[in-house]
């Protein structure tokens, strides 16, 4: 059980039909009888496999197909073709037993019933998931403490601030201890401090209960803090699947070399190695091709004038930007 796959998709595709709207009366009349449609391929041929208890980042630029994939995995919409198996279920059959073991949180949509205070929503969820009163109290206390939401529970959901609402939504989504958690941009719109708190909570929660989590976010801090493995998609196609560390290698990006000299060696020109990022007195930062990195460093050391030298991977944002553009 420990190492089995929780989520498996094979050649997963989803196409949306988008009716084209016509301008003008005659054209729209024509559109009623001869509708013209465009087909948008949101996800095409996605293969992935996620092990039980893994926390995986699901990345990609706007419109890449992340949300569409999460919607298919949670049974909200059906795939156009291909197969999905989550915990051995086919999500779109909307089996109660399956839905009872998952949770979907969407940062851009509200989960809490808009006109109810969270405590009422939680009480309704207690009935939905058949949780005993004692168990409910225990779990609620725990979540309330971890999320620090004591003060928000009795306030109508529409009157909560975004940060309060998001934390309450997490409490609601986790009440039934889902084995699988789909988090679609759970930190969107939150201030830096609140993002940090949500992140710390997620890490802590995952540590404690080991659910399988698939998370999307456009904030690289989330990705770096939370996940080891990332799956990157672009225009519905998977372009990377592996550890975060390997990502920059896969992108074949230059490394960043920072060197500080005691005194600048005779005839030294940073342009001979690569692209200059900045220069500040005897301190230079250059981008150099990955395969030349080691050689360049040892050459510089051999001048005997190096005070300090570091070689770093390009920042993850840049790596992703490069991947998305390709």
């Amino acid at each position: 059980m420990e190492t089995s796959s929780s989520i498996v998709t094979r050649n997963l595709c989803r196409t949306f039909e988008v009716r084209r709207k016509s301008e003008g009366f005659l054209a729209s009349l024509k559109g009623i009888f001869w509708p013209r449609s465009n087909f948008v391929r949101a996800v095409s041929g996605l293969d992935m496999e996620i092990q039980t208890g893994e926390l995986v980042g699901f990345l990609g630029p706007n419109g890449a197909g992340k949300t569409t994939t999460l919607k298919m995995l949670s049974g909200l919409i059906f795939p156009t073709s291909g197969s999905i198996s989550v915990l051995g279920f086919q999500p779109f059959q909307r089996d109660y037993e399956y839905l009872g073991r998952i949770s979907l949180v969407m940062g851009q949509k509200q989960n809490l019933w808009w006109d109810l205070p969270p405590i009422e929503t939680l009480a309704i969820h207690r009935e939905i998931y058949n949780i005993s009163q004692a168990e409910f109290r225990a779990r609620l206390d725990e979540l309330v403490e971890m999320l620090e939401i004591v003060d928000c529970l009795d306030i109508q959901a529409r009157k909560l601030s975004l940060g309060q609402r998001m934390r309450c939504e997490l409490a609601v989504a986790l009440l039934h201890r889902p084995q699988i958690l789909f988090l679609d941009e759970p930190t969107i719109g939150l201030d830096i401090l609140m993002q940090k708190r949500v992140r710390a909570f997620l890490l802590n929660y995952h540590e404690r209960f080991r659910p399988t989590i698939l998370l999307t976010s456009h904030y690289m801090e989330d990705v770096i803090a939370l996940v080891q493995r990332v799956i990157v998609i672009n225009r519905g196609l998977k372009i990377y699947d592996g550890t975060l560390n390997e990502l920059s290698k896969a992108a074949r990006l230059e490394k960043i070399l920072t060197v500080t000299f005691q005194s600048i060696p005779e005839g030294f020109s940073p342009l001979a190695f690569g692209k200059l990022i900045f220069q500040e007195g005897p301190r230079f930062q250059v981008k150099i091709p990955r395969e030349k990195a080691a050689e360049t460093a040892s050459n510089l050391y051999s001048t005997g004038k190096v005070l300090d030298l570091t070689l770093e991977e390009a920042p993850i944002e840049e790596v992703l930007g490069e991947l998305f553009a390709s």
Partner: protein
Amino acid sequence: MNFRTFSLEFPRHARILIQFWKTSLVQAMEYRVNFMLGIGANAIDFTIGLVQYGFFFSVANSIAGWQKDQMLAFYAIFMTIFSLHFIVLFPNLEAMSQLVNSGALDLVLTKPISVQFLLSFRKLSFDEMGSFFTSQVLLLGLWATGRIDVSAQNLFLFFGALFCSFSFVYSFFLFLMAIAIRIEKLQNMAELMWSFFTFCRYPVDVFPRWVRSLFISLIPIAFITTIPAKALTVGVEPSTVIWGGFLAVVFLFAARFFWKTAIASYTSAGG
């Protein structure tokens, strides 16, 4: 869903619904004065309708063959069904467009519950209980003073006809709910439901003969108010109620099918 899963799932669904209703009641009670006023005003509406009939019957002996007492029974039954629709279905239909547009439907669909059941009945509008209760009082009064005939057979046919009535109203409601999923921009579904009821406001006997037969044979308007009222007053043929029952089942299945296809074709915009 087979019987076993139904018998397992029904108690859980009932508890969920009761939890929703409790919340509605608590919310309504927060504005207690409003709550009482709403119910009071609603009961007064009911009474004004009643007084209108009184005026009418002071100058005429019957409307389309309906005597005064029969007409009162008709009115009580019309108001029972009309107010039940306003108490349970109307607020849910009203909330449906918003639910689809805000994307909250997404999150309902990922819960282990019957979405149809939950979205049909979750909200209650308490104001309309005023006319519901007053119409029950009127029915009881008619019965206590011997103005309606409650023989065993009539009562049996009455409840049969009432089942048909509820089924038709619910089918029409579910049909509109499904349309609200398909056409996201469509508002005022609830108004449509309302105008549907204008046909049920008077006995179908006020319509020309051919319309009347249409309302019994294919479009089941007659079954919503006229037939139940007739069952309690002048009596109806059992065959009429059996035909109504058959139609009711067909309508329920058709509406359910339409709803299911709407859910299956739901594409969930945004996010």
